[in-house]
């Protein structure tokens, strides 16, 4: 009798308890990511672990992200490793995030080379993977089903700049100096075509090894060619070395465009950085809808946008991640990735949507350093300053 009673109780407990335990669901939404805390990309994203945890704190202060399947909000929990700016390390950690940490979603590492290597983990283990600052067409040409990227393709990285040049009609020629790495090369290839479309004469295109430190030969050649625009498609250390020597050798084109010209660039060059144009996702004062979230996250993380101009793109990625889960109403990975692919939403950086191959729609704006401040100069409806062209020559 006693045994029968115990069996009855057990059955009742199982029948009643099982659906409750299923409904209770997971304790948190687990997001995996790596940050280049060391190595050469750390100059660009070193403290972004703080950016991620600060956003998670802000969301968790509101109770978390609503997941309909469980009928409640779930807190966001990040697992973050240092990829050391290295492809193999990034790949290793994303495999770990998939197999050991068993995360629900992944945010990509910084840069195209690292994303190219890391994103295979999402594809192989069927985990939604949101690439953040990675825009090489190679990443999106592999037919990956579990990958979307926040930003537009690299060849279109500076399309608004070329639109501006075409509209103004002042510049007539351009010379390219390109760092021989994946992202600068991708940007250069697109820019060369866009420059031709803007009816500029391309005088030369020098593709230079990444570790080049002396630019005397190239600058000597550029002085001879005398282009209106010197366009430097490179990462920041390369651009700093080039600009220092350009000033030393008094190379005076009407305009310098360095695709990356963030705070480190400005600090290391001082007055030589004045009037240099680069690309920004967002600057303070831009007329771009509600950007309060950028301010909130950056303030909490103690990160300054001019110093780390990629930070707003990460905030947009957080918004995309949250919306995709809310729309899916579940943490089922297949449904979340479908929700991501169908997403069309307003982010802090404008409308986000994804092409069939996965790349995103968010792109940069040309910004010029004027009096030590970054001013977005095009298009006029979002601009915070006017384009100074030609730049005052160095004496």
């Amino acid at each position, binding site marked *: 009798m006693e045994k029968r009673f115990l069996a009855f109780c057990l059955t009742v407990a199982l029948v009643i308890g099982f659906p409750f335990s299923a409904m209770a669901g997971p304790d948190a939404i687990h997001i995996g990511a790596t940050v280049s805390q060391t190595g*050469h990309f750390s100059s660009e994203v070193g403290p972004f672990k703080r950016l991620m945890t600060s956003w998670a704190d802000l969301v968790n202060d509101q109770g978390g992200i609503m997941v309909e399947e469980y009928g409640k909000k779930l807190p966001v929990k990040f697992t973050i490793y240092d990829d050391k700016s290295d492809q193999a390390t990034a790949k290793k950690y994303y495999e770990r995030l998939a197999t050991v940490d068993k995360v629900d979603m992944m945010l990509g590492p910084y840069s195209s080379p690292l994303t190219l290597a890391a994103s295979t983990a999402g594809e192989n283990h069927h985990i939604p993977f949101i690439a953040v600052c990675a825009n090489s067409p190679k990443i999106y040409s592999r037919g990956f089903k579990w990958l979307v990227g926040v930003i537009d393709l690299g060849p279109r990285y500076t399309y608004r700049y070329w639109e501006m040049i075409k509209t103004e009609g002042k510049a007539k020629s351009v010379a390219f100096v390109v760092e021989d790495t994946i992202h600068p090369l991708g940007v250069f290839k697109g820019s060369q075509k866009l420059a031709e479309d803007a009816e500029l004469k391309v005088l030369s295109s020098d593709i230079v090894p990444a570790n080049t430190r002396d630019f*005397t030969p190239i600058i000597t050649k550029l002085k001879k060619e005398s282009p209106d625009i010197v366009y430097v498609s490179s990462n920041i250390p390369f651009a700093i070395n080039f600009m220092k020597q350009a000033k030393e050798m008094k190379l005076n084109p009407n305009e310098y465009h360095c695709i990356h010209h963030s705070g480190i660039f400005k600090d*290391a060059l001082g007055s030589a950085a004045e009037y240099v144009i680069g690309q920004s996702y967002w600057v303070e004062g831009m007329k771009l809808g509600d950007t309060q979230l950028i301010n909130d996250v950056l303030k909490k993380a103690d990160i300054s946008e001019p110093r780390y101009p990629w930070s707003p793109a990460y905030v947009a990625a957080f918004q995309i991640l949250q919306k995709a889960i809310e729309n899916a109403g579940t943490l089922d990975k297949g449904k979340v990735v479908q929700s991501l692919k169908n997403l069309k939403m307003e982010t802090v950086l404008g409308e986000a949507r994804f092409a069939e191959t996965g790349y995103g729609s968010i792109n940069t704006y040309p910004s010029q350093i004027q009096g030590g401040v970054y001013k977005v100069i095009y298009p006029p409806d979002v601009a915070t300053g006017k384009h100074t062209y030609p730049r005052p020559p160095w004496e």
Partner: protein
Amino acid sequence: MSADFIQLLVGGILLGGIYGLAAFGLSITFGVLNVLNLAHGDFLMLGSLLSYGLFVWLGINPFVAAILVIPAFMVLGVGFYLLLLKPIADKPPHQLLVASILVTLGASLFIEDITAYFWERPVTGISYTLPPMEVAGVVISSTRLLVLLFIFALACAMQLYLKKTFVGKSIRAIVQGREGAKVVGIPISRVSALAFSIGMALAASAGAFYVTLFTVTPVMGIPLTIKYLCVVVLGGLGSIVGSVFGGLILGVAETLTAYYCGAEWAPTIAFVLLILILIVRPEGLFGAKK
């Protein structure tokens, strides 16, 4: 000669001055101690960062910093020698060379990792430039010209030091024969420590100039050491004049190659020259035949 060619030649010579200055210390260490110091580029990096700190936080001119870092790194150099190199100093020459490579490679990796961990700015550069000079249409970087003058002054001072002072003569005696030097009562260990610390201080001093011209990262040490090693072999192991001229030759060769053959060929020319010199004159341009 066209103005462009003269501009390139001047640019190459000025670039060579930087190479020469940086390779100078490596040459002394190798020539005196038979130690191949793979951490040399890291000492240059540390010198750059110290100079950056002095400039940014205390407003000290980088050229003054180039002098100020010398005593600090001499002390560090003595410590480094006593701790890591003295225990292997009595090994036979071929074993010493291999052991020194392993020890200094380990030290290099350690220095890079520690620096990357603690130094908040992974890319460092100083916004310090001197107005360039222009002579007959050829623009000359004043900063690089100063580096060149510094290296010539330093080379002369070192030559005098090695020829006229007791310590200098002791260093030369050790180069000529370690056992013989020991027999005549030269304190091998102390003189070696001093020679190593001079090499280290010269690397740090070169770093102070380096940061005014280029960006500095904590992980740049080993590639720099390899390049400067090419300069040392080109000029002749242990030859001070050789490292200066080796630097100048490499600077000019890289600049002309980049202009006439394309920038992608410039890094290759260092190794082409190295192979050529090893075939034609294995002891280097100014090295003594053994």
